[in-house]
């Protein structure tokens, strides 16, 4: 192959032509083709420099350096711009409607009754108390006798008890049965806990209880209570009031508080009805019935073999459904007990 002559003008034209084309290029492909043409021209010219006389080589080299630099500047800037444009276009093509509903792995829901029980448990464990539980089908002794409801106590009749069928046992009044009931109150766990755990004792016992009330807007035969029991030396009704106030705040917010009204329960003396000051009550803040409470009756302590002259205790029970009805403005008990998913789904994982 014959030697190619170094043609300064030609290579300068080729590079300038390339630079001019760059201005008009709009894709990477075009740029690539232009670059390839220019590189070819530059490479050929470089090779031709070898055959130039020595005195011309220096100038030729200078020229080549300048042309390369000129082209590089023009190309680099354009390449950055074109790539950015192309990326922007590609991303624009991938744009979606981010408001489309997406529910690939839908959450289910907890039942608010279970959740509020957990909240109550957390309240008590945060105070260092323990959570206890007794059986739902319970002996009459734990549900009644041990709690100072004697076999002929009028209150034993007023509890609307579900009795368990049986024909082997006789109760103290001579009535034949099973001596078992479906527990009417979580208080049935008081003496169990005292006997199995001993004193000092600080427990809360949430769970299911049963009464023979037909389901209507305000009653349900199966409902939930949380019993609290503390037995120790030096406990007084003042401690009862303090724990109740704290529980009220935990359940109903910082404005909530409690009030006691004289009442009667066989297993407490003194006894009180527990009223809640409910800031969000419909029609303005006010007092609402929330539960029952009192100082543990000495006979209950004696049922567990504990000396009432040394130990005192307090106990209270609050209704879980009642708590929910108040807090969430639920107007019909049916919604709370039926298990319609639309009800629980409102609460999702919390309440």
């Amino acid at each position, binding site marked *: 192959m014959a030697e190619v002559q170094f043609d300064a003008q030609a290579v300068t034209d080729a590079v300038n032509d390339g630079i001019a084309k760059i201005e008009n290029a709009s894709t990477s492909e075009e740029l690539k083709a232009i670059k390839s043409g220019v590189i070819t021209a530059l490479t050929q010219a470089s090779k031709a420099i070898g055959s130039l006389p020595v005195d011309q080589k220096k100038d030729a080299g200078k020229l080549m350096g300048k042309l390369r630099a000129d082209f590089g500047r023009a190309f680099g800037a354009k390449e950055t711009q074109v790539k950015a444009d192309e990326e922007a276009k590609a991303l624009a093509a991938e744009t979606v409607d981010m408001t489309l509903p997406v529910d690939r792995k839908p959450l289910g829901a907890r039942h608010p009754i279970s959740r509020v029980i957990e909240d109550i448990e957390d309240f008590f464990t945060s105070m260092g108390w323990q959570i206890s539980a007794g059986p739902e089908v319970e002996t009459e002794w734990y549900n009644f006798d041990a709690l100072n409801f004697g076999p002929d106590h009028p*209150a034993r009749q007023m509890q609307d008890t579900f009795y368990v069928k049986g024909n082997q*046992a006789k109760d103290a009044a001579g009535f034949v049965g099973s001596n078992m009931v479906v527990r009417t109150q979580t208080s049935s766990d008081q003496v169990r806990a005292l*006997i199995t755990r001993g004193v000092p004792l*600080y427990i809360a016992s949430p769970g299911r209880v049963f009464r023979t009330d037909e389901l209507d807007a305000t009653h349900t035969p199966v409902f939930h209570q949380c019993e609290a029991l503390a037995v120790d030396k030096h406990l007084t009704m003042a401690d009862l009031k303090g724990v109740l106030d704290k529980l009220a705040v935990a359940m109903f917010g910082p404005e909530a508080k409690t009030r006691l*009204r004289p009442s*009667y329960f066989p297993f407490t003396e003194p006894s009180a009805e527990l009223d809640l000051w409910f800031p969000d009550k419909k029609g303005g803040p006010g007092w609402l019935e929330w539960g029952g409470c009192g100082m543990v009756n000495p006979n209950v302590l004696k049922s567990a073999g504990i000396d009432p002259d040394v130990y*005192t205790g307090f106990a209270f029970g609050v209704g879980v459904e009642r708590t929910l009805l108040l807090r969430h403005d639920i107007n019909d008990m049916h919604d709370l007990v039926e298990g319609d998913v639309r009800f629980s789904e409102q609460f999702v994982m919390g309440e």
Partner: protein
Amino acid sequence: MPMIDIDWLKDHVEVPEDLTYEQLAKDLVKVGLEEEEIHSSQVTGPIVVGYVVDATPEPQKNGKIINWCHVDVGPEYNETDEHGNKVPRGIICGAPNMAAGEKVVVTLPGAVLPGDFKIEPRKTYGHISNGMCASERELGLGDNHDGIILLRNYGFTPEEYDALKPGDDAMHLLHLDQPLLEINITPDRGYAFSYRGVAREYHHSTGAAYVDPAVELNAKAPVVAGDPNVTPDIEVSIEDDNPIHGVPGCDRYYARAVRGFDPAAHTPNWMRRRLVRAGMRSISLAVDVTNYVMLDLGQPMHAYDMDKIEGPIVVRRAREGEQLTTLDGKNHDLSTEDLLITDSPNGDRGSRILGIAGVMGGLYGEVTADTKNILLEAAHFDQVTIARSARRHKIPSEASRRFERGVDSQLQPAAAQMAAELLSRYGDGEPSMHPTDVNNVVFRRPIHFKASEVARVAGLDVDVNRISDILTDIGCRVAGGGNGEFSVTAPSWRPDLNEACDLVEEVARLVGYDEIPVTVPPAPVNGAVGLTPEQRHRREVANELAEYGMVEALSYPFIGDEEFKEFGYDVDATKRVSVEITNPLAGNRPYLRRDILPTLAGTVQLNLRRGLENISLYEIGHVYLWDPNAPAIPALPGGVKPTDEQLAALDAGLPEQPMHVAGILTGLAENSGWLGGKRTVDWSDAVEAVRRIGERLGADLTFDQPAAADVPAQWHPGRTARVMAGDTFVGLVGELHPHIDKALGFPEHSAAFELDLDALFATLDGKPVQAKPISTFPPVKQDLAFTVPTTVSAAQLEDVIREAAGDALESIELFDVFTGDQIGEGLKSLAFAVVFRAPDKTLTAEDSEAIRKAIVDKAAGIGAQLRA
């Protein structure tokens, strides 16, 4: 529960002129008498007194006779005739007792009676009736609808009756415009079942002046001196040969005669009105007086026709086989625990039953419209005896309600005195001065009371003198006190005050619970902290299933034949091992569930019936496993700790009640909407739920698939597995049997699971996870496809691979399951992606080949061939 009428209350305690029922309710609730309801007036006026000017009988075609009357209702309400003169109103009245000259109660146009009955002028029987003459029932005063109210019979004195003028406000006359406060009485406060008791409590609440009416009445009652020359009204003998708990059924029987009574005498208007407002019917003066005294003082009384009674009266227990027809016409087989009032005809002592003591009288011996000589009974009966008889015979009477809560044992002479005075004043009877009083009331033991108990129990700092004053004010006799210790004798009307703690309550409630300070006890020093592992695990399971997409439900545990059948249980066999309720709410669901699934299925059905789809529910709760051979549970007394043997016997008779979790999945398992992913539920969704529970708990759950014949009837024979935690069976998972889906109305292939959480949690050791070091050497990844007989499960083959690969196996994943002609009859292909990695070096080709060979050799042992 009792109705409180301010008009009556002020007989015993001073009340402010302007006392409202709302304020009364507040005052009473402060001391523990809870408001049930304030019953507001049910009628609006105008309702006025009318004078019947004329009444013209007009026979009708239907045989009825109606009266066309003109009734003077006073100038304000009378009609105006065409000359502008006021004239009596024309009113049609069908009542048989309508007659000219009567004073009646006229409801005028604009009045509204109970039941939203609006009075308007109306055309009837050819006249315009411009108002209505009312009966008791129409005004809500009682159930009498035999005729209209004739004010003549309403117990007014002649002067009062004369003073009634046409146009007078009859609303106020009959207290129709007055509300009533209904209160709840707790079982310890029997004495508050009387105006005497409520008035005392009002005094305790407000400090208003109170006078105990029993004091003056007892003072006026004749002294029973036991003078042998005086013959008492009747001989009475208490002969209790079967006392309950050693307590005699009757410890006081007081009888007093009232002779020469006018049987035609009417109950005075004020008494009649008060009785009606208290919810009782007015029957006759003699009966009304006994009821009135009961409501006023709290002493239930009985009035006998003295001429029919033959002494002695014997108070005794019933004998085997005796029967009695009570006043309400019901026949009762008597129990030897029933206490009876009997008399002695023909000298046959105690042979004729007059009634069940304190509960209800019999048909013989009652006062009637002819009774001239009355024998009043005021007795004190044992609470337990009366409570059991009332319960046994299902007669909760006004009398038994009071006796079973405890009646004042010193009230009997006062009550008889009050009744005698009323019968004398309004019925011209002459009270005897020689009543009979058999009084065996035992003196009550004084309570030893340390004043410091108030502070120790109630946390109240109350001065010793104030404590003494409060106890005295509630009627106690308080002695001692010098060293801060009292001897306190409770008043006879407070049988509930027996222990020091009872007195603490009295002091605390009268000082006011609001005065008790507020403190918080410190956290106990000893004992565990936080939730137990089981309590934590329960939450983990509940949260996991909700996060998996299921919704928590809480179904009632009641179940019956229909559910047993629908759910494929052997009905009879299941009943034998189910807890049965004696008094179920729904007679067709008397049992408690043994599994959660059948009752949870009801909740799924409820959702489906409401048009909801893709229902997936879970429930955590207890099931109840009746053991027909469990020992009988003993009846033990309270207040004493049972022995260890007795405690064991209590628990031994109780059914097992493990905690279960169950879930039912129906409809679509996946439904990502516009994204297009839709898949219906099948067995794998239930398995996934169980697997997630296992992972959440750190339990090593495996699935053991029984032969079709061994699958329970509720489950799909080919799509059900036993869930195992190690060697422990913890439950079942799979698809419901198509028969069950059909019976319940569930979509085909609905899936379910039920696990015994107590059993599952017991397999968890609760120890902290011991972490393995993480290898940073490169992995070797291989795919291994085997042909195996269809009888070999994927889990079996996986186990073999794991075992053969040993520690070098990092992970194994089944990525393909395949059957078909290429594989051959009775065979399937299972393909696993496995990853090997050594903890301490890079595995060489020789290393991985050795592992692969070990796997292939071992797999051949269960009939698995590596596919080329």
